[in-house]
């Protein structure tokens, strides 16, 4: 939007001088522009109004409860090395999960399953899925997850972590 000051030079739209704005700051001058665009340009007004409604959409994004569930973080952390075998592998997702359709596999470098039980959603935090694991000797482990969010979107992924006492 570095050329917005050119609006002031338009013969059809004689506008007062606007300060040159760049990047994020450019959004701040949109309300000022809205009142200066020609009366026939209703579509442009609508577009600017939609942009002004951004804070409302932002709040919607924070509070809404439906979306694809993506991995937010994990314990052990993705790609990291822990000094001792964890008792559980815990995954926090961005959305609430349906426990009956969500699972975790923990595989050693030979592909052997290392879970000591079934993955379960934490009843007090439905974004948390965890599975108990056997004592893990030093090595690399692959975690494969496959989850169903409460709005029936399925997602899957994998990552590794290392145990190195």
């Amino acid at each position, binding site marked *: 939007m570095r050329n917005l000051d050119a609006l002031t030079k338009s013969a059809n739209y004689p506008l007062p001088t606007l300060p040159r704005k760049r990047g994020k700051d450019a*959004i701040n001058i949109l309300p000022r522009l809205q009142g200066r665009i020609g009366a026939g340009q209703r579509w442009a007004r609508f577009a*600017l109004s939609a942009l002004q409604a951004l804070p409302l959409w932002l709040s919607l994004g924070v509070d809404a409860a439906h979306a694809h569930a993506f991995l937010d973080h994990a314990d052990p952390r993705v790609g990291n090395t822990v000094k001792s075998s964890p008792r559980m592998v815990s995954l926090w997702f961005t959305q609430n999960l349906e426990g009956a359709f969500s699972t975790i596999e923990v595989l050693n470098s030979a592909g052997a399953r290392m879970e000591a039980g079934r993955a379960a959603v934490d009843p007090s935090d439905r974004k948390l899925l965890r599975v108990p694991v056997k004592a893990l000797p030093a090595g690399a482990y692959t975690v494969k997850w496959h989850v169903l969010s409460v*709005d029936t979107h399925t997602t899957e992924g994998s990552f590794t972590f290392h145990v190195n006492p």
Partner: protein
Amino acid sequence: MSDCSLGPAPPGAKAIWRSRLFSIFTPGPALVFAVAPLSGATAHEIAGNRFFPATLAIDDPGVNDELAVPTISMTKSGDEPPVKELDFSGEYSRRITEAFAISVAPAWTHLYAPGGPTGAGASGFQNLETTIKYRFYKDPVHEIIMSVGLSVEWGGSGASGIGADTFSTYTPTFYFGKGFGDLPDTIWWARPVALTGVIGYSIPGSARRTVTASIDPDSGQLSTDVELNPQFLNWGLSLQYSMPYLKSAVYDFALPEFVNRLIPIVEASFQTPAANFAGTGLKTTGTLNPGVIWVGNYYQVGLEAIIPINRDSGRNVGALVQLHFYLDDLFPTTIGKPIFGGPVTPAKPF
């Protein structure tokens, strides 16, 4: 329309990819360019670990329920003198089935003086564009997506004052996306990289050449108006580095949450004349668009610079900003699911 002089090159925004109409007058040759949007459905897409965001300058391979509004771009054409152009555009994409969608993309353009038929500037809608897209291949393991589509720019639906074509243009297109999460451990840092691309061929629906004879009111001489409607190869790439992918699938550096939602990106879009352009002097035009996309759970915000690759592609650096909503996440039970068939729900627990 033959008197208006508009920007010769697409400034880089998806909604302002253009076909061109060239008029050759005798005596006194002149080039005239017509504005016509050429865009397809934009959609985020997921393949295994990989989240492909909706790209701004080129179409991405995804098929989904989405609303991109507004997309705002400011560019300056390569004309002499150059014409500054402000575009507001939007796009609504709706899935018919899980892998098949249709989209509608209106765009409104304002040309500053000396653009427009009288040189005083002009405003109006570009031709409406619709796109159907079918995702025919998805490999979650290797993070590959491929789709095909057909875009139609409906001639005569836009304002002639901004140079909207009076004829329709058809563009069959191939889309692909590839994430590099399957790279070996030795270059683990490159796993967040993804590449998407598009290649389409725009075919004007009118006769390839129109010849009109008339008497020049000034000179009294017979003038011949020859219009060429060239065919173009529209192609582009996007190179992305996904911080969300880095955190969730490669290495969690415990970076701030805002940073973990960024996808730095460089897009490139080009238009290469392919047929029916002899004598016009046309050459490949395009833009490079470095920028960044912030990805939320329900929407994304993208900001890119628009850098012309040559003089014919434009002057100065333009800008492009877009707000894009994921309707499949916002409204999963209504307008965010396919009309026929819903989200794929497993029949039994994993």
